[in-house]
């Protein structure tokens, strides 16, 4: 029996048509990522890391080749199905946290549940998730602007996890944090990996990449190592 990978890049290219000419951000990438892997993607600026993250986050589709996530070819499903996959299969953690500024910490975590179940959370899942990242009730009522960077990233992690996604995509999750807080966040991500999540992290920092089982290095849109 063939073991189907959670993520499969099959000869994927991404070409941007610019006024100055075509720019190939991903150049015939073939890559499998198995369930419960911890993968770090590294590479210099312009190597194609962000483009790869956009493909993995189903925010974009390949120009050529096929990208399978959870067995589905993302280019062949509808825009609404892609939206639902973003909501249910992927948890996104950004460098800039990207919390919704008009919502409290609790509401930010509750938000994906509302998207999925079309109603306010009555299961207590959002509160439990916030508790797991060290937030009490009083802190949960704060707006993002009232929180420190580390606190915001904890809320972002809680938000990414609340719908129990298979894949955690982390785009420089420690990039805007001090070293100590950065390692705390990495400890949380390692814990999640050991609980069975597939963690994919983009980073410039070799110390952070050391947490991963496998390091993929990109150069000019190709896998260098």
């Amino acid at each position, binding site marked *: 029996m063939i073991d189907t990978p959670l993520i499969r890049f099959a000869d994927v290219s991404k070409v941007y048509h610019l006024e100055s000419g075509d720019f190939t951000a991903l150049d015939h990438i073939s890559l499998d990522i198995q369930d419960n892997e911890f993968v770090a993607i590294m590479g210099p600026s312009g190597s194609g890391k962000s483009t790869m993250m956009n493909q993995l986050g189903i925010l974009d589709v390949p120009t050529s080749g096929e990208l399978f996530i959870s067995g589905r070819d993302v280019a062949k499903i509808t825009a609404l199905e892609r*939206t639902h996959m973003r909501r249910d299969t992927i948890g996104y953690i950004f460098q800039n946290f990207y919390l919704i500024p008009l919502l409290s910490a609790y509401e930010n975590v509750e938000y994906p549940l509302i998207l999925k179940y079309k109603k306010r959370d009555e299961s207590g899942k959002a509160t439990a998730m916030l508790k797991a990242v060290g937030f009490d009730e009083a802190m949960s009522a704060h707006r993002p602007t009232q929180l420190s960077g580390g606190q915001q990233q904890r809320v972002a992690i809680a938000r990414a996890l609340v719908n129990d996604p298979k894949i955690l995509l982390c785009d420089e999750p420690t990039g805007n944090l001090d070293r100590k807080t950065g390692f705390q966040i990495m400890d949380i991500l390692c814990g999640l990996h050991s609980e069975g999540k597939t963690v994919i992290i983009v980073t410039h920092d070799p110390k952070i990449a050391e947490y991963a089982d496998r390091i993929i290095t990109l150069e000019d849109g190709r896998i260098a190592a």
Partner: protein
Amino acid sequence: MKDIFFNLSVRSVRLNFMRSILASIGIVIGVVAISSMGMLGTNMQLQVKDQLSSGADTIVISADAIRMGPTGSSSSSASSATGITKTQLNKIKLAAGTTNKLVPVYSTNTQFTLAATPGRSTVYGLNPDDITKFLTISNGTNIAGINDALVGSTFATNFNLKIGNRIRIGKETDASRPVLRIVGILAPRGMSSDNVNTDNAIIVSDDWYTNQYGGKDIYRQVNVIVKDINTIPDVETAIDEKLNTDKKTPVVRISDASSRLSGITSSLSSITTFILAIGGISLLVAATSIFNVMMMSVNERIQEIGILLSIGTEKGEVRRMFLYEAVILGILGAGIGGIGSLIIGYSVVSYMIGTTKYFFLPASIMYIPMGMAIGLVVCILSGLYPAWKASNMDPIDALRSE
């Protein structure tokens, strides 16, 4: 509120409260303009209708205007040139039947002198027996002698007349100037739909009128006062068939309160529509301002929209969030506009028409909810494009924006 998208919209409006209020003021002005103008026009129509309803049971028959020659013109025959003839009157009598009353009316304009004060007024010549059929004498008695006259209420008030006073008829230069003795004053009638407007007129007997002005048995008009108002169309048809035998060149013109009213109300309705359109322009300006504020809101929240889309928010949900914002601005504007319309509309109607007795009637007051609904719809329409733009953003580009 359970809906998180509504909460987001409320918070966004609250965050930019001053800007939102200023945009809503446009809607307030538009709603007030539409409602007040609409109410003003309707109140005018209702007042005219009320004033004309005093002759609702009357059919007015006059010589057809096309066939009327200039007064005194020798080239036109008497029968068709100056009014309804005796033969035509008899035909009307036959067509109208015995249950309905006929009132032949002479009328002209005249100069007169009261003591040393000269004036000008309409003189109606009526058979004294017909007077009480449709006029009310509030003070004094009916015409009994040949030189007796009645005057309208406004006429009596203006000249401070009392029973027994005398009026000298004709120009001061006339050789013979007959004198009339006032024996009664009529109750006010307003603008009557039967074309006999007595408030500012002198009423004399038909005999005195024909002695003075000639034209015996050639009436300015004949009024048929019907017993049952529902028979008006049948009576009109009967008269029309009897007198207007040649349909291409009708001899007489037949009208009643409803046809007169529809003429006047249609004119007033056109005026109302015109002033409503002017009010509508202010809403157009308001729409631009709401559109502008909504576009600002979208442009300021591009990154937030990117976040929402990237974590799995459906396009429809983003659209809904911005449409809620437009609805909130609309409710704010329409609500304040509704209250403003009540106050300003009431003041305008009171000042322009002089009475507010029709203001709270459904036909008038309905302009407030109507104006509010239009204001709200304008807001929602103004929010459509910004909401569509927000929901169709590319999440990658949106996330990158600072």
